[in-house]
């Protein structure tokens, strides 16, 4: 027990370095969530739309991104594809955000699609009967209601992104996970740095969960039907 405490004392100067890695982690998750959200809306509209080609593409896209490991997609995007097309210095953080965003788009599109399907059919009819066209109807009437229904699910998706982003450590992004490994190697001591990162991930997820719960409660209180 004593050597564990000594261990924490030894790495103490590096603890802020590890903890600050959470901003890299959250930055990647947020960037990816924004890309994923926009992409998810587009894909979901393609899926529910009447144009067969677009819905086919959207479904294939979703199937591929959900049917392969994220870490594999990341490796493909960072190592394989740049070599194939002769790209030299790919920024790993950008690469991570884009890959996670593309991946998240697939999941978000399913969430958003279920949200749109859950909107009362009467809302489409009422808007149509007023002469409102397809796009304004989607933007102003349907999506706001759909997104409200799925905010909890989207918050979960964001939490998943935050946790899964730890695999960006495999492409040398210095996120919190990577930093715990660097510090481990530096002091040749694994437990204290990894425990710090471990606890920090958990705290952040707890905070995000609490925020999500608050939003959900506020929404259900103002539930309008």
């Amino acid at each position, binding site marked *: 027990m004593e050597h564990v405490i000594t261990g924490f004392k030894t790495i103490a100067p590096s603890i802020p370095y590890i903890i600050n890695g959470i901003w890299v982690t959250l930055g990647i998750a947020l960037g990816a969530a924004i890309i994923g959200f926009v992409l998810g809306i587009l894909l979901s509209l393609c899926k529910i739309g009447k144009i067969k080609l677009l819905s086919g593409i959207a479904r294939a896209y979703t199937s591929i991104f959900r049917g392969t490991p994220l870490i594999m997609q990341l490796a493909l995007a960072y190592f394989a594809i740049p070599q194939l097309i002769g790209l030299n210095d790919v920024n790993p953080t950008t690469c991570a955000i884009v890959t996670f965003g593309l991946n998240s788009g697939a999941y978000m599109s399913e969430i958003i699609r279920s949200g749109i399907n859950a909107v009362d059919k009467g809302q489409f009819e009422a808007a*149509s009967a007023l002469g409102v066209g397809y796009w304004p109807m989607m933007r102003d*009437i349907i999506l706001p209601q759909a997104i409200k229904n799925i905010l909890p699910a989207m918050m979960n998706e964001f939490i998943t992104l935050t946790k899964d982003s730890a695999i960006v450590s495999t492409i040398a992004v210095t996120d919190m996970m990577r930093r715990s490994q660097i510090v481990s190697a530096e002091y040749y001591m694994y437990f204290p740095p990894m425990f710090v990162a471990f606890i920090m991930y958990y705290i952040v997820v707890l905070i995000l969960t609490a925020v999500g719960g608050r939003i959900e409660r506020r929404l259900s209180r103002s*539930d*309008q039907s």
Partner: protein
Amino acid sequence: MIKAEHVFKDFGSTKVLKDVTLDINKGEVVVIIGPSGSGKSTFLRCINLLEQPTKGNVLIDDQDLVSLKQKQVTKVREKVGMVFQHFHLFPHKTVLDNLIYAPMKVKKLSKDEAVKRAEALLEKVGLLDKKNQYPNKLSGGQKQRVAIARALAMEPEYMLFDEPTSALDPEMVKEVLDVIQSLAESGMTMVIVTHEMGFAKQVANKVVFMDDGRILESNTPAAFFSNPKTDRAKDFLEKIL
């Protein structure tokens, strides 16, 4: 005027409308009655193309709807207001925003104009004091009056009502029927599906009895109610009265 000519509608193998022909003249109030499942809603929805007829034509002011492109459909729909059994107010918008949304978006009215028009309509249906409320704060009768005002805000030439009081508690039926009646008195052309027979007698110029996807009778209310010709209509009236 609205002309429905030999309208058929199938849903897969279910034949819902089987050769429905009906004229609705300007200023006329046509009440459609008939047992549940007889195709009344489907027929109304064919008039503003919420459903596409499988066969036949719907003409509004001599414009054939069935052959129109999507953009023109939207244009024609501006002329035809619809009120639904379950209101379908936009839950994320206030009462006022429910009323000004389509006039601004579709008719490109300025916000000031739209608000002015909306407030006048809310005044007319007795709900001006609710303009900043969200729909979930309203009673059923109030919701339906807002829904009527929302349709009127587009200044339609025709109004379709699909069982506007069927989802209401009994004590709220009258406030909604009163609004519809005053609309009838103002000369609005209307097609109303309802089970309120007293109301039908009062406001209708013509009563249409539908059964099993067909129009079996079409007559003045006085003639229809006192002297229905078909057994189906007699049965139906006996059950409902």
